[in-house]
């Protein structure tokens, strides 16, 4: 097992190197003079020179790359050209909001997708299966921003049930310590703030989680159906086990495998979707920050955000793969 984890970690190294090269080139190979691309047409010569120096453009390209990687390893992700603040610092400030959003979306997607998928698989082609199929079809066909605005229109504009923007009502004056609003509300012992924060989470989480929800539902259904037809399930029934035991130990233990893999892969979709969701709901996380950065040509912010998102995605999938190996004994020896 340890060997497997080690092998997976080593396997991630080329990907990390490739990633750093691509993102390094992302800024260095901006069309035209990177300094002008960054600063715009009306940059002063002094500013251009400053950019050249900070990018080390006068050095050979491999030295530039090594400097860049060296900086990354020391936690130096560059600084914003707009306000000069270190990228990593701003990132960490906004990241908790994005984590809260994606975790809530994941809970929604998994918590609803798996039971629905199992329910649909119980009577394939029955009416319940039909309903679930239609729901998941809409899930993958409705873009985040369309679903987001639709829900805002219904639940915020028309019904006034849920708030449409921000993470928490500013009037509650919740002191922020961890920047995780939900955790801060708990730490501060403020049930009113907690409820408000959770209410703010509902619409964005559902909008963001809708695609993973639909995909997880489909995969769960297909996987349960597949396993149900396996010989070993028939064996389990022939042994006289109760239906509940056949379901939990023999069907679900195996049906989980592909579902686990998909959940890991969908985390990537969630991180990408967060960019759009945060824009719809004015959510103060990394996603909306990246969108601002693109509009401002703040390339270091874009570069580093993509890098960090990719890192998170890689780590999550590593964890999922290791979990998969625990669930599936055949992997460990493969």
């Amino acid at each position, binding site marked *: 097992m340890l060997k497997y984890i080690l092998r997976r970690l080593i396997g991630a190294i080329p990907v990390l190197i490739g990633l750093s090269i691509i993102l390094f080139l992302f800024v260095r190979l901006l069309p035209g003079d990177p300094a002008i691309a960054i600063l715009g047409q009306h940059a002063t010569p002094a500013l251009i020179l400053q950019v050249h120096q900070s990018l080390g453009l006068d050095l050979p390209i491999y030295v530039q790359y090594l400097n860049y990687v060296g900086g990354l390893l020391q936690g130096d992700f560059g600084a914003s050209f707009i306000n000069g603040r270190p990228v990593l610092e701003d990132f960490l400030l906004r990241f908790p909001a994005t984590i809260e959003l994606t975790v809530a979306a994941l809970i929604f997607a998994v918590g609803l997708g798996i039971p629905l998928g199992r329910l649909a698989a119980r009577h394939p082609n029955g009416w319940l299966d039909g309903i679930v199929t239609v729901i998941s079809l809409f899930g993958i066909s409705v873009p985040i921003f369309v679903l987001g605005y639709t829900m805002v229109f219904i639940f915020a504009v028309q019904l006034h049930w849920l708030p449409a923007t921000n993470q928490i009502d500013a009037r509650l004056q919740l002191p922020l310590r961890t920047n995780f609003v939900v955790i801060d509300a708990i730490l501060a012992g403020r049930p009113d703030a907690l409820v408000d924060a959770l209410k703010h989470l509902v619409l964005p989480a559902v909008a963001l989680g809708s695609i993973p929800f639909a995909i997880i539902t489909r995969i769960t259904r297909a996987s349960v159906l597949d396993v149900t*037809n*396996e*010989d*070993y399930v*028939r*064996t*389990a*029934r*022939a*042994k*006289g*086990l*109760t*239906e509940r*035991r056949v379901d939990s*130990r*023999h069907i679900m*233990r*195996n049906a989980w*495998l592909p579902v686990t893999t998909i959940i890991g892969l969908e985390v990537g979709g969630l991180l990408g979707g967060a960019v759009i969701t945060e824009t719809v709901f004015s959510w103060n996380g990394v996603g909306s920050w990246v969108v601002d950065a693109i509009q401002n040509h703040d390339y270091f912010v874009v570069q580093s955000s993509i890098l960090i998102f990719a890192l998170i995605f890689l780590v999550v999938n590593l964890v999922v793969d290791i979990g998969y190996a625990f*669930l*599936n*004994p*055949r992997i460990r*020896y493969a």
Partner: protein
Amino acid sequence: MALLEVEGLLVRFRTHDGTVYAVNGVSFQVDEGETLGLVGESGCGKSVTSLALMRLLPKPAGRVEGGRVRLDGTELLDLTEAEMRDLRGRELAMIFQDPMTSLNPVLTIQEQMVETIRAHTQLTAEQATARAVELLGTVGIPRPETRLKAFPHEFSGGMRQRVMIAMALALHPRLLIADEPTTALDVTIQAQVLELLRDLTAEARTAVILITHDLGVVAGMTRRINVMYAGYIVETAPTAELFAHPSHPYTVGLLHSIPRLDAVEGEPLIPIEGTPPDQRHAPVGCPFAPRCAWRLPACWTTNPPLEPLVPGTPVVLTGDRATHRLACLNPPTAEEAEAGLPLREGFVAAPAPGSIVDELATVEVPA
């Protein structure tokens, strides 16, 4: 009273493409400790029959639409699902064809054996584990204590089938159904597994229904054989009698289509022409008629019941003295059975009714 009594079992599958007439009124009995072979080509309904006895037909397509199945006097088809579950594994056990897929890949052998034992007994986990070790030893798995912790993929096919046998016999069932238990195994392993199965069941006086397409397998393993074709039993006899006097054209065909060691040099194998019938149509006439060299015009319209080979013999249903019965209007003679084809002068199999041939010049031939 026989241990198992099956009467007029009728199984149909409702699928997208229509109804499949899988088992069409099958009746047979099995005595305590008796070994019965169920022989036929794939798709002839032998596996479906066994799944119907276990009440494990694939749902919702497969349904028993008629007949009775009694185990020790208990009507299985009337039991509730919970009562049936209690019998499965305890009174009525089953071994499946492919040991590579019949064990759950994510559970250890221990987990799978212990759950079987504990589902039907009051044993503690430790006691059940001890019993599992003992069983694995009995089926000839070396170092059972350590092997118990292993996963199925760490075993060879033959070893997995031994595990399946150990699991099936764990609770001393009265009837064991073995569905092609050695088909997926290497030839050398086949013999070992069959021998093990025979020894263990003989010792415990477990009745066995051995399902196979391989006449070589049933020869040494069973006392009596039912030959099935297209959902019907077409011939039944004690094993020795069946091999000595095969009397249904299909049985004759089966015996002539396997190579024999004692065959005279140059004697050709005679394959059975054609393919098994499409069971999506309600059966009319003898199901074997289209492939039969002995068919009469009546065979296209009449499907005869199982009758004693020698008319008027009192019928014994089970045991070594069971009556040799067959369902055929025009059975081959002993010489024809030996030769594998009709020897009557000028005899030609009757053409299908309504075929173009009817309109051609037909010649009356004295039978």
